[in-house]
């Protein structure tokens, strides 16, 4: 297999193991490119890519934009907060207006699950989902699995605990799909109010006791409490959440295991993770960010192979 089956990357659910491995192999090559004095290749110089963000983002947007520039693509950025969306323009109209200006690929983040799927059915340009509501965030899951593979040798057979706000997390769902396809065991841990009721159908373990989860896992992927998505109270206070589910050095020291710590960012230091853990030698949080550029270069490069000039 030398290219991806679809013109779009909307989620991990429909990616095959071969496709994930192809993305990883290609990312390996781009990591080498990123270590050169001139960190740029001309592969996408004929493409224009629009980053269409209807939600806030620091890492993902920056990472995509850097990846696009490293691939020599022309880049336009769109942010809903300063656009005509505020004047009532529909999603499809906005996208079509961007496309008639000859844009070849769209990287989209949207608060509504399924928004990139809707767009991809209506346009010819490639669509990359950069996070749709609480649904999927495929490039984050790919870079997470890629970083586990890089730092621990392989993903197969590893035990990964995803800890925190699972209900509101798109990272969790994409990670479950990606890790399971690569042969890892997945456990979800958090207060039962933050774990979706039917998630066990995805063949994952569920644990409410963080100590037990940490004793079980090789890698802990700690998620942020997404207060911006919580209309109801899911736990009494951040302080209480931190007391029961916050990961700190004392808790890790009480466990007789060497656990790799991950976090997709942004970190709420002192809430879900303490500074002494986030900055410890077991933390691969900044490796995740670094690998994000190579993974996104690989995804855009491979999707571009499906486009004829």
């Amino acid at each position, binding site marked *: 297999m030398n290219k991806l089956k679809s013109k779009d990357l909307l989620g991990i659910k429909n990616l095959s193991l071969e496709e994930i491995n192809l993305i990883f192999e290609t990312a390996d090559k781009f990591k080498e490119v990123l270590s*050169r004095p*001139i960190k740029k*290749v001309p592969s996408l110089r004929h493409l224009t890519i629009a980053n269409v963000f209807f939600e806030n983002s620091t890492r993902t947007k920056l990472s995509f934009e850097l990846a696009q520039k490293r691939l020599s693509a022309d880049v336009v950025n769109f942010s809903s907060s300063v656009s005509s969306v505020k004047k009532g323009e529909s999603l499809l109209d906005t996208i079509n207006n961007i496309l008639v200006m000859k844009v070849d690929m769209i990287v989209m983040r949207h608060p509504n699950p399924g928004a990139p799927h809707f767009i991809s059915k209506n346009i010819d340009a490639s669509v990359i989902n950069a996070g749709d509501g609480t649904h999927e965030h495929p490039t984050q899951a790919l870079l997470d699995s890629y970083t586990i593979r890089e730092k621990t040798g392989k993903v197969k057979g590893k035990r990964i605990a995803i800890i925190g706000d699972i209900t509101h997390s798109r990272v969790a769902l994409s990670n479950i799909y990606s890790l399971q396809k690569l042969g890892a065991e997945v456990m979800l841990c958090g207060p039962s109010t933050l774990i979706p009721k039917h998630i066990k159908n995805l063949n994952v373990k569920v644990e409410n006791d963080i100590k037990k989860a940490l004793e079980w896992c090789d890698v802990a992927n700690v998620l942020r409490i997404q207060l911006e998505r919580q209309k109801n109270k899911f736990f009494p206070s951040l302080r209480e959440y931190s007391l029961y589910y916050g990961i700190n050095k004392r808790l890790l020291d009480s466990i007789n295991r060497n656990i790799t710590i991950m976090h997709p960012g942004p970190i709420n230091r002192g809430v879900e993770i303490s500074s002494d853990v986030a900055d410890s030698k077991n933390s691969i949080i900044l490796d995740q960010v670094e690998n994000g550029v190579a993974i996104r270069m690989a995804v855009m490069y491979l999707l571009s192979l499906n486009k004829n000039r």
Partner: protein
Amino acid sequence: MTNKSRLFNKKRLDITINRLCHQLIEKHKNFENTVLIGLQPRGIYFLNRIEKNLNRILGKKIDSGILDTTFYRDDFRSKEIPKAKETLIPFLVDEKEVVIIDDVLFTGRTVRSAMEGIMNFGRPKKVELLVLVDRKYSRDIPVEPTYCGIKINTITSDRIEVNLVEQGFKEDNIWISNE
């Protein structure tokens, strides 16, 4: 029907590689400021053979690297899609004399993309090209080899088949064929 004739057998290949090594030494003396860069995939086999020969003759190790040109190609969407391969150039080429090594020179497009790739590792003082087979009169781009094993006249439908023991073949053979 396929017409097939042999350009190189093992003996002739060994003699040619030895001759190319001496041509390189004539120009680059002790290789103090010269690096060799083989192009993926088959240029690497010739790089290894040339390097081994030069190491033996000069009694020292010469800096070498390998380059995959996939990301620099201008035709990677219009042809059979290549899978990117490894690039390993563990040095800067600033002010170095670079010898690009490949098996066959045909349209010149691979060499063009290789030159673009090499410039990402610095500004070389000089770039030369060594190929085993030069297919004359078939260039799309004005690229000519500095060192060449054999020059042959071909038509577009001709194919050069490089079969080396490194690729799993029983013995070294390089063929020219036409269907």
